[in-house]
Structures are given as structure tokens and as C-alpha cells.
């Protein structure tokens, strides 16, 4: 309890520090890259697989996915609006030349890359980490490859495997083969299918039986090269009775053209295990007229296989021109628990269609959805969530709360809950509110000396508090600042 209280107090302090910064991660690093030729074809798929020295089975899986992708229609049910993507107009592989052979020791990394991560506030030197307060291991993914993973050896001491997925293929191929695509099959949707064909890097985590991972694990995704897409793949397996807290962060340079980021994340949770997965997504959102920005089309899903398994998704989505993602939980194990805590902020011309799916299969499974959507400028966002209770899920429970906050009168917020219950014993609750920041609130805060933008940030941080509190401390600080920065220019 003492820790919690302290954390809460620290979190309370955060809101003072919301200076006037725009998108500060928009710089480009001057790094020589090896690029695949533009376009998408079977040859490109083979090229990527060859670059990674992959086993035959994986190449076959990629080719199968590619063939399927060609036939697959784009999803059309989401409430977002954009011109069709020209898939032939992008590079599907981009690696800094110095990192082409996979992660090496820090001494071998291009100093420019180290500088990039330093600018982003991501320390890759372990001694820096130890000197600071943070207790976080980092996998740094730069365009299509992982350039560094810290604390690998310290984690190995307790049997935790944390490495780029390409390295996992060499270290524990049987685990990768068994679980890759087991939660999100390539047939799932067009974006996930594309990922299955052309994914490049991403993180692999295995937490052995009974191990509580001694530090936060995190992956930091950076898109640098222009005209590229990023297609990372993350696979986390929490064996019986284990626990891990994993964080991911994302940024990209400011560019006039859109860039595609189509990731797949799969979580596998065994008996009595727990995964806490947090995201702070701050991809470049485009300019105020909607020029440029990342298309963030992501498929994230957790499978609670075991009894008493638990998954908690927390996401803070402030960036991207378009966000399309629905981190979901398949609750197969009896008594398993799925949670989804979300903050989505859209400003200017940003669009987001995001939510979750809670699929209750086991008995006494429970799920909780807390979604906070903030829309400003001319932005439009939708919460889209599915709660499905299967006939066998006796005693299943769901609680959903969707709150939308509107700033100004040109933005939109929509809530689309789907509830499918095939079990008479299920208890499903759904609450939704939509509100505006009132003139009274702003005047009250301003009368106390707080300027208008800080006042908006304060009200919005209060609105999101329940979700911000779910984040690990290191991310909560960043996220709270982001909330203020993302909404700059939304009033006045």
C-alpha cells in the first residue's frame, strides 16, 4: 500500500510539467540504410526471409500468407476515411547498414543510432539505466531491425528470454514455431495477413514457470527511413504462474507522406500467469491539415489459455493519422481475467477507431473495459468493442465503461458496443457518457492562474486518471505530458 500511495502522489505531481512542445520526436536521423526495392511481391517476401536467415517453415508460412493477402479484401467496417493504400509504393525492409547482421554489442552500433535513442530519451547503455531510477530492459527496433537489447544476460539468469524475434528463431525455434500465429492467424484480417508475410522484427519474450520477471521489459519502435512501412511482430509467452509487465513506445519523423505501420502482437498466458501490456503510442500524427502521419493498423490479441490466467492491456493512443486497433482477450481458461484500459486522443485531422474484444469461453471468466476517448479539432474517433459470452461460459461477467470528452464543436466521438451473450448466467454491464469541457471548468482554473492550454490538459488528465494510473511509473510520467502536448492548439 505504501508503494501505491507514493506512486499516486508522484503521479499527482506530474501535471505541473506540461510545457509548450509540439511533436518533438519528428527529427530524422542521418543513417545509411539498406533498403529492399520498393514494392511488394513474392520476391520481396523471399528477400526478407533470406535477410533473416529464416528456416524453411517460416518462409513457407510467409508465402502462404502473401498468397492469401492478395485475395483478401480490406476491412471496411471501421469509421475512418482515407485514400486506398498503394502497397507498391513502399519499402518493406529497411535496416541501418551497421545493424544488418542483427544486434551486436553496443560498441558496434552506429553512434548516430545511439544518439537517436538518446534524443528519444531511451537509454541503451545499461550503466546509464542502473544509475537512473528506471528498472527497464529495452529492445530497440529501428525501422525493420532490432538494433539493441539491454539486460539480456541479467534476465537470462532467471531464465527469462527477451530478444528480437529473429534471434528467438535461433535460440528457441520450437517455441516460436509453436506459438507464432497461434493467437492471430494470418487469415485474421488484411493488415495482420500482410504482417504475417512481411514482418521484420519485434520482440520475443518467454517467462518460465513460476518466474516473476525482475524488471519491466520494453520495446521501443522507431520508424526513421522514408517510404517504409514497419511490420513488427511481438510474441510473449507467460508460462504457468509467471508474471511480466511489458511496455512499448513508438515515434516517427514528421513527413508529408503517410507511412504504414501494421503490427501483430500475440500474448499467450498459461495457468495462474499474468501479462500486463502497456502501450504509449506517439507516432507522428500528421500536420494540422491532415498531411502525413502514420497509419497505425495493428492487431493485438491475448489468449488466456490457463486457469486463472490474467491479461491487462493499457493503451495511450495519442499519435498516428489513423489508429485502427483492438487489443483483445480470448478467455479460454476458467476464471481467467481480461482487462482493457484505453486513452485515445485525437486532435486536428486525426482519426481513431479503437476498442477491444473480450471473448468469454471459460467458466467464471471476467473482463473489464475502461475506455476514455478525447476528441478535439476536427478529429473523429470511435470506440468499437465486442463482448461475446459463449454458451459454456457460466458465470461470466463483463463491465464496460466508455467515456468520451469533446473539445470544441467540430470533432466527433462515437461508441459502438457489440454484445453477444449466449449464456443466461452472464452478467454484462455497459455504461457510456459523452461530455464537453465546460466553460465553467476552464474559467475556474484560469481564475486560479492556470493558462487555458494547461487548464485543458488538467481537465483531460483528470478525465483519464483511472487509465493513467494503470501505467508503470516510467510511462505514466511520459503519458501525462503527452496528453497535454497532444491537445495543444485545441482551444482558444
Amino acid at each position: 500500500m505504501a508503494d501505491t500511495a507514493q506512486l499516486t502522489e508522484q503521479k499527482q505531481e506530474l501535471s505541473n510539467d506540461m510545457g509548450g512542445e509540439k511533436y518533438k520526436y519528428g527529427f530524422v536521423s542521418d543513417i545509411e540504410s539498406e533498403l529492399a526495392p520498393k514494392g511488394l511481391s513474392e520476391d520481396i517476401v523471399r528477400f526478407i526471409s533470406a535477410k533473416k536467415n529464416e528456416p524453411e517453415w517460416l518462409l513457407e508460412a510467409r508465402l502462404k500468407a502473401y498468397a492469401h493477402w492478395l485475395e483478401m479484401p480490406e476491412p471496411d467496417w471501421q469509421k475512418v476515411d482515407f485514400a486506398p493504400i498503394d502497397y507498391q509504393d513502399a519499402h518493406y525492409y529497411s535496416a541501418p547498414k551497421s545493424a544488418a547482421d542483427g544486434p551486436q554489442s553496443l560498441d558496434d552500433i552506429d553512434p548516430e543510432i545511439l544518439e537517436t535513442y538518446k534524443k528519444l530519451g531511451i537509454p541503451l547503455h545499461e550503466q546509464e539505466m542502473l544509475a537512473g531510477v528506471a528498472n527497464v530492459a529495452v529492445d530497440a527496433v529501428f525501422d525493420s531491425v532490432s538494433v539493441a537489447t539491454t539486460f539480456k544476460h541479467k534476465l537470462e539468469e532467471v531464465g527469462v528470454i527477451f530478444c528480437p524475434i529473429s534471434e528467438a528463431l535461433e535460440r528457441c525455434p520450437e517455441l516460436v514455431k509453436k506459438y507464432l500465429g497461434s493467437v492471430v492467424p494470418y487469415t485474421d484480417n488484411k493488415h495482420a495477413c500482410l504482417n504475417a508475410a512481411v514482418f521484420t522484427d519485434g520482440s520475443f519474450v518467454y517467462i518460465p514457470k513460476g518466474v516473476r520477471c525482475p524488471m519491466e521489459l520494453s520495446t521501443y519502435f522507431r520508424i526513421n527511413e522514408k517510404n517504409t512501412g514497419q511490420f513488427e511482430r511481438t510474441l510473449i509467452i507467460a508460462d504457468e504462474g509467471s508474471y511480466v509487465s511489458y511496455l512499448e513506445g513508438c515515434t516517427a519523423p514528421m513527413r508529408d507522406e503517410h507511412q504504414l505501420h501494421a503490427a501483430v502482437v500475440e500474448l499467450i498466458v498459461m495457468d495462474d500467469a499474468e501479462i500486463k501490456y502497456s502501450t504509449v503510442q506517439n507516432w507522428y500524427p500528421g500536420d494540422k491539415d491532415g498531411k502525413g502521419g502514420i497509419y497505425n493498423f495493428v492487431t493485438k490479441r491475448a489468449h488466456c489459455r490457463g486457469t486463472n490466467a490474467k491479461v491487462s492491456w493499457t493503451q495511450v493512443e495519442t499519435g498516428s493519422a489513423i489508429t485502427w486497433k483492438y487489443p483483445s482477450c480470448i478467455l479460454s481458461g476458467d476464471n481467467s481475467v481480461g482487462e482493457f484500459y484505453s486513452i485515445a486522443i485525437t486532435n486536428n485531422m486525426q482519426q481513431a477507431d479503437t476498442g477491444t474484444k473480450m471473448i468469454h469461453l471459460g467458466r467464471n471468466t471476467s473482463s473489464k473495459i475502461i475506455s476514455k476517448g478525447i476528441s478535439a479539432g476536427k478529429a473523429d474517433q470511435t470506440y468499437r468493442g465486442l463482448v461475446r459470452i459463449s454458451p459454456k461460459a457460466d458465470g461470466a461477467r463483463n463491465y464496460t465503461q466508455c467515456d468520451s470528452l469533446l473539445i470544441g464543436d467540430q470533432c466527433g466521438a462515437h461508441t459502438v458496443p457489440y454484445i453477444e451473450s449466449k449464456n443466461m448466467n452472464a452478467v454484462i454491464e455497459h455504461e457510456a457518457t459523452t461530455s464537453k469541457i465546460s466553460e465553467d471548468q476552464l474559467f475556474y482554473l484560469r481564475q486560479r492562474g492556470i493558462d487555458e492550454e494547461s487548464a485543458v490538459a488538467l481537465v483531460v488528465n483528470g478525465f483519464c486518471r483511472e487509465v493513467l494510473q494503470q501505467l508503470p511509473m516510467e510511462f505514466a510520467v511520459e503519458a501525462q505530458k503527452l496528453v497535454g502536448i497532444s491537445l495543444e492548439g485545441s482551444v482558444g
Partner: protein
Amino acid sequence: MLEIKNLHASIGGKEILRGINLTVNAGEIHAIMGPNGSGKSTLSYIIAGRDGYDVTEGEILLDGKDLTALAPEDRAAEGVFLGFQYPVEIPGVPNTTFLKEALNSIRRHNGEDELDAMQFVKMVRQKTKELGISDDMLKRAVNVGFSGGEKKRNEILQMAVLNPRLAILDETDSGLDIDALKIVAEGVNKLRSPDRATLVITHYQRLLDHIVPDHVHVLAHGKIRRSGGKELAMELEAKGYAEFDEAAA
């Protein structure tokens, strides 16, 4: 300290204040009384700089500086504090966070160092102790779930923390029972200072039994119709505002 000169103001073209002249010196408490709809609350909003009101003529000077063109937050930094008739709820924002942000915004504006978390907590605990307010109120979200009395005491706490040059208390007595009223009045009295000008806006005389003013003004139909000592409040209590209705008619 506060000088209002020939202040005219309107909302949507309708004139609400029709030439207010008022001087409040440091250390003084002035009460502004008047019938409902006389422009009392409007006056407090206009001094604080709320949007939606047009000052068409006149000046509001604080320590000789004209406030009329300043944003509300800049007026606050200059030392204007408005105790609200209906304090506003800010869900999810702890009182301490709000107070610290407010205080440090004002300090930044005035070129002073910000207080860090430790310094702030020490200072605010001192204030709650002096005012007899439970520290529990600091942790709760701003005014959310507060009783009427708690909301008004929270206003007094904010005033104590921000230590304004000019305090305007708008209908501080509304919605309070007599016990809550006494507690709030006691807080105001504790914050009496030779460096501060205080303006108490009220409809009823009863608040003035507890916060004794140096001067009383009657505001009706957008103008100060009469000024006097505290005995004027007693007279109004006995006779009501009827004569001012006639005066305007």
C-alpha cells in the same frame, strides 16, 4: 489598491453595469449588497475577466495597473482571487495537483521560483492546519462529492494558498447552514490582512454579522446607489431593497 472607475459593461449588447465607481484600500473589507439581478455577480466576473462580457467604458485598476485587457489567468497572477458562488467540480484532478499547478503558474508569471513537491506539501499543510481543514480534502478530486460547506471551505483554502492582493467572495453564504457559514466566515477573518483588499458580495446581511465590513455599498440596476458603514447593512435587513427599485424606476 482596487480602483474601479466609471465601469460600464454589457452582455450581448445589454448594459448590465452603468458606471461603477469603487475604491477599496489595502486592509479593508467592503461589502456589496443588492437585490437579485442587480449586477453583483456580473461585477465579480468582470473583475476576474470572464469571457462573454464587454467592458464598454471605464477602468479596473489594481495597484494602479489596468486589468481590463488581461486574460483571467494573468489577472490571477496580478493578485485577483474570486471565491465562487458555485465552485466547479474537476473530476479526477486531486486538490493538491490543482493547487500546486495554480500556485506555481502564478509564481512563474511573477518570476518567482516554483515550489517543489516537498515545499508545497509543507506549505499547504500549514494552511490547512491554520484553517482547521482536514488534509483529507487535499487528496480528493476538486470539489467532487463535496458538501456545500466543504466547497466553500475549499475556496477559502485556495485563497489562503494563493494569498491574493484582491479577494472577491461572491455569495459565499449561499447554500450554507448557519454552522457552515460560521466556519467559512472564520476562515475569511483569519485571512484578513493589511496587505489585502476584500470585496464581499452578498444578498443577505447575515454573513456580515460574521465578516464585519468597513464599508457597505448597495448595487442596484448596474450602479452603486448608496454607500455607508456596516449600519447600512442592518438598515437593508430591516427595510429590504424596495427603495432602490423605485430609485431606478
